[in-house]
C-alpha cells in the first residue's frame, strides 16, 4: 500500500524545496557578483 501523502511530501515538496534552494542561491550569487563588481570598480576609480 502506497502512502500517497508521504509520496506527495517527498516528491512534491522535495522538488519544490530543491527549486527554492537553488533559485535563492542564484539570486544571492547574482547579488554578490553585483556588489563585488561595484566595489571593485570603485576601488579602481580611487586608484
Amino acid at each position: 500500500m502506497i502512502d500517497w501523502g508521504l509520496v506527495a511530501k517527498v516528491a512534491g515538496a522535495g522538488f519544490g524545496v530543491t527549486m527554492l534552494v537553488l533559485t535563492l542561491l542564484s539570486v544571492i550569487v547574482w547579488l554578490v557578483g553585483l556588489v563585488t563588481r561595484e566595489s571593485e570598480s570603485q576601488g579602481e576609480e580611487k586608484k
Partner: protein
Amino acid sequence: MFGLYESAFGALTWGNIVMLLIGGFLMYLGIARKMEPLLLVPIGFGVLLINLPLGGLMEVGADGEPIGLLAWVFRGGITTELIPAFIFLGLGAMTDFGPLIANPKTLILGAGAQFGVFFALIIALLVGRAFPDFLDIGIKQAAAIGIIGGADGPTAIFTATELAPKLVGVIAVSAYTYMALVPIILPPVIRLLTTKEERAIYMKPQLRKVSKREKLLFPIVGAAVIILLVPRSAPLIGMFMFGNLLAVSGVTERLADTAANAFMNILTILLGLSIGAFMSAESFLQGESLVILGLGIIAFATSAAAGILLAKLMNLFLKEKINPMIGAAGLSAVPMASRVVQVMGLKANRRNYLLMHAMGPNIAGVIGTATVAGVFLGILG
C-alpha cells in the same frame, strides 16, 4: 587441491559465471571503450574478485564484524558514508564555479533537471506496487532509485547507503554505467524536445570575467545557504564547497592538489573495488536489479528532458535567449553532458561554442542532486 585444501571450482555457480561475464563487460567498457574507466575498471575487477568463490573478501563474522579485506573497506568507507563524502571534497577541488557564477540563472536549470529524480521515484513505487511479490520497493528504496537520475555516482551511493543499503551495488553500477552512456542517452532526448532552430540558438562564447573575490565567496556563501536550508546535505555540500575553497583560496595549493589528485585517486580505487565487491551473484542477480537498471534510464532521460523544457520556459521571459540544449546538461555527469551539448551545438550552428554555457547547469546539477539527497535524508532518513 591435491587433497590439501578446497579449490574454488566446485563452489562456482551459474550465478557466479554470469557475474564474471558482467564484471568482464564492465572492464571492457572501461578499458576498450574508455567509458568512465576510473570507476568501471575497479568496479569490474571487484565483481570478478567477489564472484570467484571462497576468497572470503567480503566475509563477515557471526557478530556482523567484517573479516574479509573488502568487507573492511566497505564497512569503513561505504557504510559510514566516508568515501562518497570525501569524493565530493576532491570534486570540489577540481571544479571551477566560474561559469556558474558568471551566469547564476543556470543554477535554476540544475534544479529543474532534478525533476527526473522525483519522477523516477513515483514510477519506482508504481512498479513496486504492480509486482509486490517480485519487488520490495517502498518509499525509501524508490527515493534511492530515483536519485540515479541525478547522474551523480557518489550522491547515489551516499543516499542508497542510508535509505536502501541492500541496493547500493546495483544503484551505483546503474548510476555509473548511465553516466558513461550520456553521449548515447542525451542526443535523442535533445532531438526529441528541440527544433533545429532552437538547437542553433547562438550564445556569445565569452562569459563575463569572474573575479577572485566572487570565486572565494561562492563556496562559503553556497555552503551556508544550502546547509541552513537543507541540513542533511551537509556532508556532500560541505565537502564539495570546502574542496573548492581549498582550490580558490590561493593559499592552500598543496591541500587542493592532494584533494584533487592523490586523495581522490585513493578514494576512487577503494570506492570502485568495494562497490564491485558488493555485487555477488546472490545479491545482484535478482529481479530488482533489472528493474532498477530500467528505472535508472527513465530517471536519466526525464532529468535531461526536464532541464531542456525548463530552459525553453525560461526563454519565454528572457531578452537574450539561451540555447535550450544547455538545460540537458543539468544532469550532473560533469563534464560529459556539457561536451555532448557542445558537439550538438556545433552541429546545429558552426558559430556556437556552448561548452562553458553548459558547464553552469552541469555544475549546478551536482549541487542540485546533493540538495535532493539532503531533502530525501531529511524526510526519510
